[in-house]
């Protein structure tokens, strides 16, 4: 028994870690950048996008530091999702709701992110002659009401998944152990989640009304 195989453990802890670094970190950064559209105006957002697009090895970073980790996180996540039996209908406890939502928001986020990346990162390369995406293009995209609704749902799900995942990470890595520590970290994660959510929603509002 001492020669036990720790691969299952590694796989799950790896998944949890990916969700924070780099995926979660990128997610928070993305919220911050997008928030510029609302808090500082579209021109600042365009500048920030231009800055990012000026970074060296961007495509490499996008694929290997963001794309692949998200895909791995999602694939392992789907595997986890398949084997659980949610039961909030019987045990409607707060944590059980969060657990259940974590699984469903994960699935929503996969669909949302896939569509989002295709629409706002890939598609315009082939359908327009833009070098980099600009706020005008994005704003035009959000003239469709269902796009707004889709984004509202997707961002909500992804943000919840991010904030609750952050809390889970603390427990799974043995950082928040005591009952009280877990309550405090829940407040902290909620605050982070709300901040990210405000940035994303503000940008969505800004693009929709631009």
């Amino acid at each position: 028994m001492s020669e036990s195989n720790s691969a299952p453990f590694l796989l799950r802890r790896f998944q949890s870690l990916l969700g924070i670094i780099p995926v979660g970190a990128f997610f928070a950064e993305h919220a911050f950048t997008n928030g510029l559209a609302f808090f500082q105006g579209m021109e600042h957002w365009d500048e920030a996008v231009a800055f990012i697009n000026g970074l060296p090895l961007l495509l490499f970073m996008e694929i290997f530091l963001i794309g692949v980790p998200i895909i791995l996180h999602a694939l392992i996540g789907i595997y986890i999702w398949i084997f659980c039996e949610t039961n909030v209908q019987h045990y409607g406890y707060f944590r059980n709701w969060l657990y259940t939502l974590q699984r469903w928001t994960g699935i929503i986020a996969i669909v949302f992110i896939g569509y989002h990346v295709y629409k706002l990162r890939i598609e315009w390369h082939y359908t327009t002659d833009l070098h980099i995406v600009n706020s005008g293009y994005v704003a035009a995209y959000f003239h469709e009401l269902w796009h707004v609704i889709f984004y509202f749902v997707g961002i909500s799900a992804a943000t919840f998944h991010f904030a609750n995942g952050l809390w889970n990470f603390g427990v799974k890595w043995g950082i928040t152990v005591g009952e009280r520590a877990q309550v405090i970290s829940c407040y902290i994660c909620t605050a982070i989640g709300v901040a990210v959510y405000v940035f994303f929603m503000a940008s969505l509002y800004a693009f929709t009304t631009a």
Partner: protein
Amino acid sequence: MSSTIEVHIKRQKEAGKQPYWEKFRVPYQASMNVITILQEIQRNPVTTSGEKVAPVAWDCSCLEEVCGACTMVINGHVRQSCSALVDKLEQPIVLEPMRKFPVVRDLVVNRQRMFESLKKIQAWTAIDGTYDLGPAEKQAPQHQHELYLFARCMTCGCCVDACPQYTREGDFVGPAALGQAYLFNNNKSARFQAEERLNALMGEGGIQDCGNAQNCVRVCPKDIPLTRAIAKLNGATMAQFFKNLLFK
């Protein structure tokens, strides 16, 4: 309070057979519990429609919530039927077998898997023998108190039954076994096998299967702080993982 109690019971003739429901009505008695209902059915196994049926099979033993035998799902929640007092239950009372274990018959399930989990995590103190070797080490009363909380686990299965990660087909050892791993890793001499337990907990069905739904701690009839144990073991397995990686 009406003078009779209506109870709906999910029955099953044997493993693999289709479950079916039967309704019974039994006389009300002051301070009666679900056990008394089932005993009354034994004494008069007739359904509300007047059909004579076999008495309902269920497991029970101590009837004072220390043996864990009489666990079942009562009005949707898993718990011991001895401590389920009728006066505190909504009626009709609905009884079902536990959800995560193979049904043997009616409300009887086979919880052997839980005991197998205890083997996986070496839930014991590896004493040298039963010879007279004097007393164990001194122990702080606070330490005793902490261990006692976990030592009261009856292996009743409430925690695993309510755990969304513990499934019939899966191999997760479940919160009860994790609580015991924590108990033994903190016992004055059983901790000498702590590394083996932590390594076992990183394998198939190990601690990584916990999804933090934390139902376990809510349904535990003995209020065992299972989630605390799990969080501590999370840290310990992580440390063990790096130790294995770097020092072996």
